[in-house]
C-alpha cells in the first residue's frame, strides 16, 4: 500500500473510533437528556414517549448505534431542540462565517507568527527573544472570552472605534462595495485579533525550535561561508529546510482554533459554528452539540491528515518511512 493510502485509511479509522467513543460516551452518562429538556415544563408521559421515539431512545443500543453512525456519516444529527430545525441546515448556514474567521486567523498565525518565530531563533536568548516568548506565553495564558471582553470594553464601548459584535452593520444594502468591505473588515478585526493572540504562541514556539535546529546544520554554516547574504542564508536555506516540520504544526494548531472559536464567536456574537455551539451548550441542545462535536472532530482529523500530506510532499523521507 502506498504511504498516502495508508495515511488516509488511518485518518478514516481514527474518525470512526472517535465517533464510536462519542456515541458510547453519551449513552453512558448518568443524566437523561429528556429529563433536562423537560425540567421547566412538565411533560405528559405520552409526550415523553413521543420524544423517546423521535430521538430513538426506545430502540435497542445496537440499533441506536447503527442509526447514529449512518446519520453522522451522512451529516444527519436530527433536529435542534432550540431551533426546531435540522442540525445539518443550521451548521451549513453558519459554516462560512467560521471559515472566514478561521482563514484570517490562519493567515495571521502562519505569516506573522512564523516570522516572529524566525526572529526569535535569530536572536536566541537575547532580550527580543525573551520579550516575544513572554508575550506569546501571556497570550496563551489568556482566556479568549476575557480578552475579547476587554477589547470590546476598550475599542467599542470606550473609544467607539470598532463595532462590539456581529459581522456587519445593518442597512448597508445598496452601499458601495468599498463601504461593505470596510465594514466587514472592521467587524472582523477584534475577533480575529483575539483568536490570533491566544493561538499565535504555538506557531511562534514551533517555528523558533525548528529554525534553531536548522541554523545548527552544517550546510547553513557552509552557505554563510560561501559568502551568501544573510537574508539568503536565513530564508533561502535555513527556513526552507525548517518548513516541512513547521507544516505539521497545522494539525496541532487546528484544535486550538476550533476550541477558541467557541468562546470568541460567543463574545463577539459572530454568527458561526462556535457561537452556535456555545448557545447549544447553554440551552442543553443535545443534537446540535453532538453535530458540532462531530464536525470539530472531522476538522481535526482532516487537518492533521492534510498537514501530514503536505509534510510528505516536501520531505520524501516521511513517505518511505
Amino acid at each position, binding site marked *: 500500500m502506498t504511504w498516502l493510502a495508508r495515511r488516509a485509511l488511518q485518518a478514516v479509522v481514527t474518525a470512526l473510533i472517535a465517533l464510536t467513543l462519542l456515541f458510547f460516551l453519551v449513552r453512558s452518562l448518568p443524566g437523561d437528556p429528556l429529563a433536562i429538556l423537560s425540567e421547566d415544563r412538565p411533560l405528559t408521559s405520552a409526550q415523553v414517549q413521543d420524544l423517546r421515539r423521535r430521538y430513538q431512545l426506545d430502540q435497542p443500543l445496537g440499533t441506536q448505534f447503527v442509526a447514529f453512525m449512518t446519520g453522522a456519516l451522512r451529516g444527519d444529527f436530527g433536529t435542534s431542540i432550540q431551533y426546531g430545525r435540522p442540525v445539518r441546515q443550521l451548521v451549513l448556514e453558519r459554516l462560512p462565517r467560521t471559515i472566514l474567521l478561521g482563514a484570517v486567523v490562519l493567515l495571521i498565525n502562519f505569516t506573522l507568527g512564523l516570522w516572529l518565530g524566525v526572529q526569535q531563533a535569530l536572536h536566541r536568548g537575547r532580550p527580543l527573544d525573551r520579550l516575544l516568548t513572554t508575550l506569546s506565553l501571556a497570550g496563551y495564558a489568556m482566556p479568549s472570552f476575557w480578552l475579547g471582553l476587554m477589547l470590546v470594553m476598550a475599542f467599542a464601548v470606550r473609544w467607539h472605534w470598532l463595532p462590539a459584535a456581529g459581522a456587519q452593520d445593518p442597512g448597508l444594502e445598496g452601499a458601495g462595495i468599498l463601504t461593505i468591505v470596510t465594514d466587514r473588515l472592521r467587524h472582523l478585526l477584534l475577533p480575529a485579533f483575539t483568536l490570533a493572540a491566544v493561538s499565535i504562541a504555538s506557531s511562534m514556539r514551533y517555528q523558533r525550535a525548528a529554525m534553531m535546529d536548522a541554523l545548527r546544520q552544517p550546510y547553513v554554516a557552509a552557505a554563510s561561508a560561501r559568502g551568501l547574504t544573510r537574508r539568503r542564508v536565513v530564508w533561502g536555506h535555513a527556513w526552507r529546510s525548517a518548513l516541512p516540520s513547521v507544516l505539521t504544526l497545522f494539525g496541532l494548531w487546528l484544535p486550538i482554533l476550533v*476550541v477558541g472559536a467557541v468562546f470568541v464567536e460567543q463574545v463577539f456574537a459572530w454568527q458561526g459554528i462556535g457561537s452556535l455551539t456555545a448557545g447549544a451548550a447553554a440551552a442543553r441542545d443535545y443534537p446540535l452539540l453532538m453535530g458540532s462535536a462531530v464536525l*470539530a472532530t472531522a476538522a481535526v482529523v482532516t487537518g492533521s491528515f492534510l498537514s501530514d500530506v503536505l509534510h510528505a510532499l516536501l520531505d520524501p523521507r516521511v513517505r518511505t518511512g
Partner: protein
Amino acid sequence: MSDRARTLFDAVWKRPSGRAGLLALASLALLALIGPFMLPDPTMQGDLLTQSLLPPGAGHLLGTDQLSRDVLSRVVNGLRLSLVIGLTAAILAVVFGAAVGLVAGARPGVVDALLMRTVDALLAIPRLFILLLVLAVWDRVPLPALVLLLALTGWYGTSRLVRAETVRLRHEDFVRAAEALGAGRLRIALHHILPNVAAPILVAGTLGVGDVILLEAGLTYLGLGIRPPTPSLGGMVLDSRAVFATAPWTSIFPGLVIVLTVLSVNLVGDALREALDPRSA
C-alpha cells in the same frame, strides 16, 4: 529523589523566567491559602441600593459586583478553587496517562495497538466538546466529578509520552538485568521504568495545570462548570457581562488573576522543560 528534586528546583530558579514563575505562583498560592480568612464572606451581600457596583476604594479594594459582593474576596476564593481544581485534575491526569502508557509500552501487540488507536481517536475530539457534551446532560455537576472529568480528558498526551519512553527503555540493559533477576512486570514498570520517565511527566503535569484552569474557567463562563453562588473566576467574568461597560472592575480583575496564574504555571513548566532538555532552550 530529594536530591533530584533539589537539582531541578535550582535549575528552574536559575532561569529568570522560571524564578519569576515560581515567585508569582508562590504569592498566588499564599494569597489563596490565607486570603479567605482575612476577607469578608465572598457570598455576603450588602444593601443592594447603596453597596452594589462600588468602584475600587477603601472599603472594597477591588470594588463590589452587582449583588454588592466584595470583588477581591470573590477573586481570592475563585483563585483558591482554580488552583485546587487545576492541581488535582492535572495530577490525576498524569497518573492515568502514566498508567496507560506503561501498560501499552510493556505489552506490545494487541493491547498496545488497541490503547494507542483509542488515544489517537480521543486526541481527535477537541477536549472542550467532550466536556460540553457531558456537562450539558449532567446538570449541576458536583465538584469532584468536574475535577475527574477534567482529568479524564487530559491524559492522552502523557500516555503517548510514557509509552514511547517505555518502549525505548524496555530493551535497555538495566531493564533486562532486572528481568533476568526475576523482577515481575509491575516491579519493572514501577521501579525501573517510571523513575526514568518522571521528568517528562513532571513537565506535562505542570503545563496541564494551566490548561485545566483555563478550561474550567471557560466551561464556567459558558454556564456549565461551577455554579453560583460558589465564587469562580470564569463565573465572575460571566456575571460581569451585564455590567462590564459601567463597572469594568467586575471583569478586569478575575481575568487578570487567571492570566497571572496560568502564565506563572506555564513559566515554571517551560523552565522545567528547558532544564530537563537543554536542546529546547
